[in-house]
């Protein structure tokens, strides 16, 4: 099944949770801001949030330093 992540089509496993998807991308979920279909995903929901089919997912991955 497909989603659109930051404007690009991506194949994902049906039922995959946001946290697992972020880990697959090599991101520490704590450092990522996520919006799915126009709604910001709360941090405490990352573990349970299942990516829906055809989701439009927007991710901003932050790096430390300031």
């Amino acid at each position: 099944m497909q989603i659109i992540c930051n404007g690009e089509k991506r194949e994902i496993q049906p039922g995959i949770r946001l946290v697992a998807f972020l880990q697959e991308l090599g991101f520490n979920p704590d450092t990522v801001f996520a919006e799915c279909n126009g709604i910001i995903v709360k941090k405490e929901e990352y573990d349970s949030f299942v990516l829906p089919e055809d989701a439009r997912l927007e991710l901003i991955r932050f790096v430390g330093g300031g």
Partner: protein
Amino acid sequence: MDKKKDIPSLDALNKVLAQRHGPEIQARIGKSVVGIMGLGGLGSAVAVALARIGIGKLLLADYDVVELSNLNRQYYFIDQIGLPKTAALLDTLRRINPYISLQAINERLTEQVIPERFKGVDVLVECFDDAAMKPAALRAAHTGMKGVGYVGASGMAGFGPNNSILTKRIYPRVYLAGDEKSEVVEGHGLMAPRVGICAHHQANQALRILLGVEDKESGYANHL
């Protein structure tokens, strides 16, 4: 420092700021309230830049004390080592402009407390060092502080090209500055010149928001 100089009056200071910046612009700057989260290399420089142009009020948050290792990039001095960053920076800012309203928030911020601590600010500037606090602050502002201006930062370590530091709009009145990838690694630490570039991107973007300029281009991730 033994010879105490006369401190200019509020009128004298406002007059030169208005002459330099234009009276209408200065009036707007002087009424503006900005919150700064984190007073390290980014936050201390943003605060100094905004103080110099006569911002109305700054809310300054940090839980840390000044250390020797901060002086390679942060706006502190040898004689401030050991002081809380909030106290040290308030002192420096008062030497620049004694009439700015300053409020210290001396605590470790969390996603939950940000909207309450910074209630009423016009623009919130995210200057955290910790990578996890950056998205947390963006979530807090975007969900709990509707309509607030926001300028975050990500990616400014090392001595990479000047022009790889960009400011991008992600939502209306919400921006991120940095190159999005330069994190701290061996031989690629945080250094005053490039952290300063990023800080001044943030300060100028905060000013643009305060003056009602909205950049329409440069969406962050295509569709946001």
